[in-house]
């Protein structure tokens, strides 16, 4: 699904990613751990193709196509989707319109919103006055309407209360076809700080990022426990 090869990325002239290699297979979910400022979000934004993330070296292959310099919206059309950690507010644009714009099948997004009890937000302006949990729900609904093959999730649990974590977890499981045990086609890459999301979504592999490098790969639960016990630096040492 996704193959990243020796990826070096600058942000505002500063070297942030320093030789990232990563492979996510079809149907796999990977987790990305790491301290604030280690480069996790930069990696997601670079994969999605946002402006300001300058690839200095290396390449990103998605579904067999080199997307390293492909425009953002073409990547989305090809099957990449991203849930924003802090999405902007779109004044005057209703969530209903946004879901319709995202929907691969007409009306799918609105139907999903109703299904997830988010009906009363359909005529509100996108993200305007939304709580942390509401923003995440809105993001996931948009993604479900978009139906990407590889979903990039930037801290999907941040700002969400325990009660809503269940719903968020359920939505992510749907997005990643976790109900399918065979022939799963959807993949995911999830940034998580708290690891809470691992209680709701099983991941196949975990990565730890430190100073722009991936330092450790393995079973996500083991890695997360290692980080909890010993901290990021120790965790990295112990694995290598």
């Amino acid at each position, binding site marked *: 699904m996704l193959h990243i090869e020796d990826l070096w990325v600058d942000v505002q002239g500063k070297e942030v990613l320093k030789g990232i290699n990563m492979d996510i297979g079809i149907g796999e979910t990977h987790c990305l751990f790491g301290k604030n400022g280690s480069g996790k979000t930069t990696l997601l934004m670079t994969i999605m193709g*946002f402006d300001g993330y300058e690839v200095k070296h290396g390449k990103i292959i998605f579904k067999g196509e080199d997307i390293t310099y492909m425009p953002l*919206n073409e990547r989305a059309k090809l099957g990449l989707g*991203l849930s924003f950690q802090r999405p902007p507010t779109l004044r005057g*644009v209703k969530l209903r319109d946004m879901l319709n714009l995202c929907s691969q099948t007409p009306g799918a997004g609105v139907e999903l919103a109703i299904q997830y009890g988010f009906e009363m937000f359909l005529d509100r302006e996108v993200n305007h006055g939304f709580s942390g949990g509401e923003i995440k729900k809105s993001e996931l609904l948009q993604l479900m309407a978009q139906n990407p093959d590889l979903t990039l999730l930037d801290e999907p649990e941040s700002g969400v209360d325990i009660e809503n974590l269940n719903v968020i977890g359920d939505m992510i499981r749907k997005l990643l076809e976790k109900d399918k045990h065979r022939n799963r086609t959807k993949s995911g890459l999830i940034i998580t700080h708290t690891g809470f999301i691992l209680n709701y979504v099983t991941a196949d592999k975990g990565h730890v990022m430190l100073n722009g490098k991936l330092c450790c790969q393995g079973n996500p639960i083991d890695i997360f426990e290692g980080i909890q016990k010993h901290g990021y630096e120790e965790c990295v040492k112990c694995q290598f």
Partner: protein
Amino acid sequence: MPVLDKSPSTTDEELLKRFKAAPEEKAPEDVSELDNEEIKRLRQTGIDLDAADRLGTFIQTNCNVSSCQCDIKGVEMLPVTEALKKYDGLKDYWWKILDPDKDVFTKEADRNLDNGYFIRARAGEKVVYPLQTCLYIRNNNVAQKVHNIVVAEEGSELHIITGCTTHPHLTSGLHIGVSEFYVKKGAKLVFTMVHNWAEDVYVRPRTAIVVEEGGTFLSNYVSLKGVKSVQSFPTCTLKGRNAIARFNSVIVAPEGSDIDTGSRIILEAPETRAEIISRTISYGGRVVARGHLIGKAKDIKAHLECQGLMLTEKGIIHAIPELEAHVADVDMSHEAAVGRIAKEEIEYLMARGLEEEEATSTIVRGFLNVKIDGLPKELDEELQKAVEECRHGM
């Protein structure tokens, strides 16, 4: 009253001299004499002659009143010249909250009045659907001078849609519009004004509103087309406890347009509330977006919001939000923001698969999104067109 900037290189007196008096041009006595193109133009300005949900229609073409009919008993609609005769000079309302000597335009309207409308909702009359009034300049180089009086008597409710426009092939004109609105105790007046002028038209509205105890005045102003110069600054005084005023405006200024507009609300009585919200877009034109809230009594609440979007390197948006408190117990706030479309908003939409142009249009459309009940679909189409034009102007 702040000194409003004059239109470049023309004094007010020179401006008056440039245009001829409306009676010099022959104008239709009846609306049936308007052709299809003109009717379409009116529709694009919010005036629908066939709509079943308009309870009254007043149309003034140049100086002639070519339609004045109202289907509701509790609402009186008259050409203002007739109302002056019928009601002994309308002495409670005529030049009561505006000074005829305020400037050359009020003086001119006082001395050489063409006509205007008088609308009064009787006490307790609640009108469900809007009435429409249209001030239409049909011939080139005509100066149209009107004076309107609207009275919403105690406990009444009234919605007026006013479309101000020019003939589809006309380029030049002057519109002077004096308006005095009286919202009595517990009454509600919704006043929606659509401007649809031409490239060399000068517009000088002079408007004042008084709202009594528990009354509500809501104003919507939409101007999407090019115009040489607009200069307006309606002033609303909240005189009675619990009175409310809200001004919404949506203004698009293409190249060559100079629009100086805004509103002032004076909160004179305790527990009154006021809100001014303006959204302006410049793609080459100049907009001065004013807002002045004056808190003179305790426990008032007033908010001002000025948002400006610059779509090109040319053009000017000058937002002037002002808050003025005369007592301590007031809650007054404002927010103003002017700039280009945020890149992160465009990218947010592009990450959902939208092309950059599509993303831009979606944001501009959202920015201009005004929900005003009762406007014909043609105006919605005009809004879509304005969005497209903005985008092409970028």
